[in-house]
């Protein structure tokens, strides 16, 4: 049976650029909505024709700020996707939104368009933190948005950023407890990362931003799982927490190294076509991307064939992020490489002995201790 496809749709515009963010987002005074709507629908239709009918497990509107899209476009894209592919009965359709009043006003319309899961970019429940993160909303707006979203959408997630400069363990526990009280079935809790090329990086380099030392970051991470568990949310991926069964199906597709389609400026996709795997990405700049689509039907700018050895590395680096780990049989089937051939056996044994990895009859998984060191762990065990 063909595994369901995951569909990602990128809306590349934001009202303003957050100083920590390195996503492909652009600020424009005016946006030609009609043009981008047409281009997105064209590219989706082009890809659907190219890869043929497949089951569709999820749609994810990401960005940028996709809640800035017109609800009609969201509705059209969902209708197109579910017509072009074969949606599974409980298809998950997520849209990312910011808790500003403008966007919140459109929530009912997004729900009507078919979105059944909302992901809110709350980032913090601390006024000063929201300001230093460059967010456009305040704490009251965030709370209002959460209440409203809970009422409108069957499923709701929101993001918080922690391990911020000067954040203490007790302050984070308090903030997180408030957040958990507002949470529904899912949370994404990220430690602040200084990304290259962002204003935060420049300030970090100048010593104006000091991240918590590793030991504190570890305690913050462990406290996060503890507090979340009190509210019934279990960590299932390094930065994601959910009630059982409420995991993000779309994101699971990435971590499980399933096929995914990416539509829109800068979107990535990985697909097995005619027994070969290709990684493709679209032109990152919105207008040139739209021009490409208008000319060729798609805005693909990069295309790379992924050989089995590379696929094996990719599946390892994604799969070990998940608590469920990697199914060895599925690994061999997805990558063409037996799991053991992709691993340095000496280091594997050492990592198991140290309690960083666990192996049973079917799965290889990273323990909590392994996950928090995953980058180093991968460097050691991946061949």
């Amino acid at each position: 049976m063909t595994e369901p496809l995951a569909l990602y749709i990128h809306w590349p515009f934001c009202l303003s650029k957050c100083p920590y963010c390195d996503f492909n987002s652009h600020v424009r005074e005016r946006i030609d909505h009609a043009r981008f709507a047409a281009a997105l629908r064209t590219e989706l239709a082009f890809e659907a024709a190219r890869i043929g009918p497949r089951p569709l497990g999820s749609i994810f509107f990401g960005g940028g700020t996709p809640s800035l899209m017109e609800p009609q476009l969201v509705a059209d894209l969902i209708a197109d996707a579910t017509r072009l592919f074969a949606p599974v009965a409980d298809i998950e359709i997520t849209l990312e939104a910011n808790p500003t009043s403008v966007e919140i006003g459109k929530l009912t319309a997004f729900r009507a368009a078919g979105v059944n899961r909302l992901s809110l970019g709350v980032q913090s429940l601390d006024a000063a933190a929201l300001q230093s993160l460059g967010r456009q909303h305040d704490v009251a707006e965030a709370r209002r948005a959460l209440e409203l979203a809970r009422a409108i959408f069957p499923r709701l997630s929101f993001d918080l950023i922690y391990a911020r400069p000067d954040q203490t363990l007790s302050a984070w526990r308090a903030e997180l407890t408030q957040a958990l009280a507002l949470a529904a079935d899912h949370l994404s809790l990220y430690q602040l990362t200084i990304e290259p090329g962002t204003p935060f990086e420049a300030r970090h380099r100048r010593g104006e931003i000091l991240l918590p030392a590793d030991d504190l970051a570890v305690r913050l991470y462990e406290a996060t799982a503890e507090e979340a568990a009190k509210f019934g949310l279990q960590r299932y991926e390094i930065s994601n927490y959910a009630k059982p069964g409420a995991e993000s199906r779309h994101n699971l597709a990435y971590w499980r190294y399933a096929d995914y389609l990416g539509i829109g400026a800068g979107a990535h996709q990985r697909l097995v076509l005619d027994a070969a795997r290709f990684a493709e990405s679209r032109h990152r700049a919105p207008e040139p991307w739209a021009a490409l689509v208008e000319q060729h039907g798609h805005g693909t700018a990069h295309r790379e064939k992924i050989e089995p050895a590379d696929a094996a590395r990719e599946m390892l680096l994604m799969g070990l992020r998940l608590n469920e780990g990697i199914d060895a049989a599925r690994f061999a089937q997805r990558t063409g490489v037996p799991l053991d051939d992709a691993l340095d056996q000496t280091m594997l044994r050492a990592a198991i002995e140290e309690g960083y990895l666990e192996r049973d009859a079917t799965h290889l998984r990273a323990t909590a201790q392994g996950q928090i060191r995953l980058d180093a762990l991968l460097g050691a065990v991946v061949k």
Partner: protein
Amino acid sequence: MTSIPIERIRNFAIIAHIDHGKSTLADRLIPSPGALTAREMTSQVLDNMELEKERGITIKAQTVRLLYPAKDGLTYQLNLMDTPGHVDFAYEVSRSLAACEGSLLVVDASQGVEAQTLANVYQAIDANHEIVPVLNKIDLPAAEPERVKQQIEDVIGLDASDAVMISAKTGLNIEGVLEALVTRLPPPKGELNAPLKALLVDSWYDAYLGVVILVRIKDGKLKKGMKIRMMSLGSTHFVDQVGVFSPKMTVVDELLPGEIGYITAAIKTVADCNVGDTITEDRNPAAEALPGFKPSIPVVWCGLYPVDADDFEKLRESLGKLRLNDASFHYEAETSAALGFGYRCGFLGLLHLEIIQERLSREFDLDLIATAPSVVYRIHRNNGDVEELHNPSDMPDPSQIDHMEEPWIKATIMVPDDYLGAVLTLCNDRRGRQMDLTYVGNRAMAVYALPLNEVVFDFYDRLKSVSRGYASFDYVMDRYEESDLVRISILVNGDPVDALSFVAHKSAAEARGRSICMKLKDLIPKQLFKIAIQAAIGGRVIARETIGALSKDVTAKCYGGDISRKRKLLDKQKEGKKRMRQFGKVEIPQSAFLAALKMDN
């Protein structure tokens, strides 16, 4: 070139401390008879290796012939022999001096006698040289010619009242130097009709001519086409070319007794031309060789490894090429678990080691790791066998060793009074035994017997630091002495790192073991697994440090758009591991070894 009778030949060397003006004086002596055109007159013509110029030291012996019309109306042939200035080349120096009858002792009139000057001047005295003191830089405001003259008399025991006062820089009284050479130095002695006897002073490899041999004719004559024989090796060669340096290579018909010049004889490698050997005529050989020949023996050894394992072949070729030009350095292949494939190389001393290392990196563009220098120990096994130990990791189990010996040196240190206490403390800490301590003005001269082992450790750097750079140091190899020596192994998670093992005196073992463990702790980044670093003598651990496992290393966000980038980062991480050495589950960056091997702080 017209022939000059032997009575009008003067062969001389110049003895001087670095920076006291030897090269400047040599440059002054050369143009006065108009030997070089302006274009050829690059500064310091005699030091012609790039490295020699940069460091202000002479590695290869050089020579130049000048014709000087003296005040007595006659023209003299002056042969200047530029000698290697450093103790590492003491034997080469002694052969260069043996080719001359006299020396100019050049002393900076503002600085006075330095340790290096002393060692060389004693060698010149041993070679029965007539020595002419020359005070240089007398134009400087800080010059104290009377004090320095007194110092020369007090320290060296030479009469300096007739010292020639010059400024090589301005050219002041160069004439006085030339006249002193003519009037104060004896002419060479030699028998024209005796069988050929020529001293092989030095040799080097020339890309066009093959090996060029510098010779001093003692008896007989040397001509093109002659079949010569190296008396120590018994090998024979036909002479292609005979010439002199003026300072350009100039072909002559023959070299006569007392003369210094070069020959070429289609010789492929300098290893066939031992410094100090006697060259004779194959058909009519001399009955006995000139005295004093010694094959060169390396006293300091270290491992040289390419940083990039792929460069091993290049290292092999480069060492071969260097050896063409420097027979005094030795190399043999060796394998290290920590560093891979490389060579164990033997050198005449630490400077020689540094020069070879620098030439490898500069001329051959090689990125190298050098293990800690080790001296040559003598091991007396229980069964009576005696063997030499060049590599600490080859040391047999202590139960098989009856006793060991280590080389000692006689070191001369000159230092201003203010720093004497610190210098003496340093020498005592390094197991030194004071042999002599004298004061000359406000400077002290300390003579110490020191184990060479303690000197190769980081003695130079410590000496420089405790004397703020004012101490000068020189040494000669002295003898072997029985010693209580142990091998210290460095273990990473229980695995010995062969490249880091070293031999030390028992009294220093623990401190040194601890210091290297602490150093490694700072140098090795935290990793996935905790790392135990131990120093051990046999099975006994004498020092231990632990590097804890890194506590966090994870990417917070990783979704569909991040996979390619993450995979490429992982590939880069793997690429970086080529520069790592694996010890069980621990990977140590080569840079950590490199830094640990640099023993200076």
